[in-house]
């Protein structure tokens, strides 16, 4: 068993609010230099750049998981972290069916779909910054139906965090973890949110610029940097877990 560092919430240039410098190679090399072992690509309501970042990581020791930051109809952000690009793409098909509107790049920013080497494949025309018409419960169910892990994003943030939007975490919502932003430390978060101590806490960067990649991270005690090991760590099973002091 060893300790690895995971940053499971990183945007690419596909997210309208992220900088164009968030290219697959840029993200991977930044994550490597920050000492991350496991990262997840979570763009708003889309996973179209996830495979490109996975491709960009092939010559490195870093593991990249495909993910998505889904906006529920309550405007709560939930991360879906998946095992394979196919699961992420299937989830994306469902999300697109429930996401209305066209992006206005002038107002919200460009949504650039790229290959691993940064070659521009096109621009996503959907309103990715918008909200789906899926309830929070339905989003979590759908993530699980696609073999993914569901994480309530940045619960310490007023805007789009589950506590800011709803004021509480519905007890029957089967979240796999709660994410804390870089504004708060993991140990502070566990005392601030002591009422939710049954949940696993993660810290991630929610990086929209290269410099932020790896600045928020969680130490995991696992056998390897993989989806299956992450899943065990979040559940605290088979000796895997989160190293909150790390």
């Amino acid at each position, binding site marked *: 068993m060893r300790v690895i560092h995971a940053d499971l919430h990183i945007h690419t240039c596909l997210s309208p609010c992220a900088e164009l410098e968030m290219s697959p190679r840029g993200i991977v090399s930044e994550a490597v230099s920050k000492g991350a072992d496991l990262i997840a690509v979570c763009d708003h309501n889309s996973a179209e750049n996830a495979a490109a970042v996975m491709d960009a990581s092939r010559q490195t020791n870093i593991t990249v998981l495909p993910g998505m930051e889904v*906006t529920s*109809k*309550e*405007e709560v952000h939930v991360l879906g972290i998946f095992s394979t690009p196919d699961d992420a793409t299937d989830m994306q098909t469902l999300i697109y069916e429930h996401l*209305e*509107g066209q992006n*206005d790049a002038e*107002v*919200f920013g460009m949504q650039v779909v790229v290959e691993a080497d940064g070659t521009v494949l096109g621009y996503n025309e959907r*309103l990715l*910054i*918008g*909200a789906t018409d899926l309830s929070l419960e339905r989003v979590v169910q759908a993530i699980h139906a696609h073999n993914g892990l569901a994480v309530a994003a940045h619960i310490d*943030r*007023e*805007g*789009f965090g589950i506590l800011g939007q709803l004021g509480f975490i519905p007890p029957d919502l089967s979240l796999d973890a709660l994410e804390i932003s870089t504004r708060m430390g993991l140990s502070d978060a566990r005392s601030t949110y002591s009422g939710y101590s049954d949940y696993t806490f993660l810290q991630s960067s929610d990086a929209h610029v290269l410099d932020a990649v790896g600045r928020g991270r969680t130490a995991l005690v696992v056998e390897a940097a993989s989806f299956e090991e992450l899943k065990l760590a979040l559940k605290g099973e088979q000796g895997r877990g989160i190293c909150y002091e790390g």
Partner: protein
Amino acid sequence: MRIMELKTIVETLNLNVETTRGYLSREVSGIYVSDLLSDVLAHAKEDDLWVTLQGHPNIIAVASMKDLSGIVLVNGRTPEDETLRKANEEEIPIMTTEMQTFNRAGKLYGLLGEE
């Protein structure tokens, strides 16, 4: 519903102006009250004054896209620094008030009348 200059509304109802003064000459032709951004994107009309409790930066993108005349933050809430910076950049006035939504919207209704 009466069309009224934003400046008149601000002065009559004693709203605190958080952004740089000078964008208050816009005419307000309606009021929209909502805390869900997606709902505002779908239903608010141009020149509406938006009453909300959300103070994060995305409200500026929404107001800008819908060409709203301004944003009123209720219940003593204040805009985040980044929200204020973007608001000044986009010239979208942000006002604040201690009143909660019902009372603030009620006063606006009293001033501007029915749709």
